[in-house]
């Protein structure tokens, strides 16, 4: 391939990538998820790959309490919950609690998610939901958006991580940790849903 041709091809590649990225950034997405899984209902199963290509399914974690957070390293509100989520994962790991991150944002590629996760020391699995198929299935619309699933595979809590008003300041009520504690103690979850602001999941 001549030097000129190589430059043309790489230039075109950059142009196409830039345009595609800008379109995604500028347009976001006007579509919304439809069916929303609510507390008491069975959490639909998934088969999604982690950042190293290993496939995970919800069925793999049967008998455990599972915390699923729809996340995005490009959303400050989602990033803001990471220190508390990492701490929660470590605190309850030996009590049979599993934390899983799911990134359904179309513009977020595996490499950038992996780089961020390594920088932040995220040790729990982060799964890439290609084409937001699973987000659509459970009706997830924003990041962060959390589902806490009990040992029987039913949703025990759905909503905000906590009641923060500022992306970087933890809220006063840790909804997710409260739900986990209640499940571990065999008590009902006092607040099974809590709405909160978050960044729209950028869909396909």
């Amino acid at each position, binding site marked *: 391939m001549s030097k000129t041709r190589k430059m043309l091809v790489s230039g075109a590649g950059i142009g196409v990538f830039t*345009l595609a990225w800008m379109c995604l950034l500028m*347009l976001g997405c006007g579509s919304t998820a439809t069916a929303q899984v609510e507390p008491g209902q069975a959490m639909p199963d998934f088969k999604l790959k982690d950042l190293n290509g290993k496939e995970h399914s919800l069925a793999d974690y049967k008998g455990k309490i599972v915390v699923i957070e729809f996340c995005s390293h490009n959303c400050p*509100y989602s990033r803001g919950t990471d220190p508390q989520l990492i701490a929660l994962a470590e605190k309850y790991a030996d009590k049979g609690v599993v934390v899983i991150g799911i990134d359904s944002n179309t513009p977020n590629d595996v490499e950038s998610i992996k780089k961020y996760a390594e920088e932040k020391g995220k040790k729990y699995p982060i799964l890439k939901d290609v084409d937001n198929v699973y987000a659509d299935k459970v009706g997830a*619309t*924003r990041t962060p958006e959390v589902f806490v699933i009990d040992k029987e595979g039913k949703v025990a809590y759905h909503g905000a991580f906590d009641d923060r008003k500022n992306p970087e300041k933890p809220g006063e009520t840790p909804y997710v940790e409260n739900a986990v504690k209640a499940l571990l103690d065999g008590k009902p979850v006092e607040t099974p849903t809590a709405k909160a*602001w*978050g960044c729209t999941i950028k869909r396909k």
Partner: protein
Amino acid sequence: MTFTTRKFGWFALAGIVSVLPVFSCSAQPPTPEELKNAKVETITVASVEQKLKEGNGKVVVVNLWATWCPPCRAELPDLNAFYKEADKDKIAFLSLSVDDAEEQEKTVRPFVAKQHLAFPVYVLKDPDLDELSKKLGVELDGAIPTTIVYNREGKPSKPWVGGISKKELEDLVKQNL
């Protein structure tokens, strides 16, 4: 370098330069003049109803956003262009920010100033989702940006969740004019 390559090089450079404002809009702090001209006000959720009523007889566009939300920031140039061209006798625009109201002078005002937003931005104190949903007459799930268009009788459209382009907003408004 051949003529074609050179031409493409200029094209690529122009492309990159055109993208730069998206990344660098907050690189330089706003000037005192820009800060002074920024129309930012803090309001309670209770007063949102009144703000909606002020648009009685007009099509009202409500946009919910925050400075920390990337897709919200991305759609603002389109919303700004829409507002500047809109017939203000027929269309009202209500921009509601869910940023932390206590920190709005450090976050929202500089952002609005730098973006030269022509419309006033109202920062909500304690934006409780259920309360705000009641005031706006729609079911909000917390995902932003969200845009709602009210027809001249005050009936809301289904909330548009996610970024909206100028063309998409114009089409929504036309359906309600």
